[in-house]
């Protein structure tokens, strides 16, 4: 069965500093990986995805993520955090095997707080 772990419930960072949100996954084959952000009282917004190819994926709002197969990780990064990046971040995985029904499995979420 597919699963995702986000080991940190909350990440605090000063504005202008690098931001990293950690994610590790478990699937039977090669994973499809996604990052979403949820601002207060809003739905989830898609940030980026890894399907295949270059291990470094660039997404919306200056975010990027690095796929590391040996460490089964897909950490989200931003070189310089903004106060407006404060939100709840979710990592998700989909098993590419068709029988999985395209189901997305979400991690527990990491709350990011960027302080001015």
């Amino acid at each position, binding site marked *: 069965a597919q699963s995702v772990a986000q080991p940190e419930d909350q990440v605090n960072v000063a504005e202008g500093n690098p931001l990293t949100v950690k994610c590790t996954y478990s699937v039977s084959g090669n994973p499809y990986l996604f990052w979403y952000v949820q601002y207060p009282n809003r*739905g989830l917004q898609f940030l980026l995805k890894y399907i295949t190819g270059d291990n470094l994926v660039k997404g919306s709002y200056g975010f990027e993520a690095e796929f590391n197969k040996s460490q089964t990780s897909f950490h989200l990064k931003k070189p310089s955090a903004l106060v407006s990046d404060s939100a*709840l971040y979710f990592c998700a995985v*989909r098993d590419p095997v068709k029988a999985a029904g395209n189901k997305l499995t979400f991690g*527990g979420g990491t709350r990011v707080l960027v302080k001015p």
Partner: protein
Amino acid sequence: SAVISQKPSRDICQRGTSLTIQCQVDSQVTMMFWYRQQPGQSLTLIATANQGSEATYESGFVIDKFPISRPNLTFSTLTVSNMSPEDSSIYLCSVQKGGGTATSEQFFGPGTRLTVL
């Protein structure tokens, strides 16, 4: 992307009653999903609703409690039946474009915040 609207945005209901949540998408999509989210917590998939077929429910969710309709490619409803305070949650509609291939991302509606008294 996809523009998804949900009605109502929030509601406060009495236990034992039922609430139907509507999800409208701005374009035709094959796959629609319904999730539940406790505030600040992760998402749990309730069911997958594909047009022209019965909804597929995840473990722990049953059709009698959460009946789903999918009358066309742009609309779906989720009913929360015989509600109890444990049903208080945010209910999110989600769609997958790109023909429903495994590589395409899902898009989410703004959610319906339900409080059951």
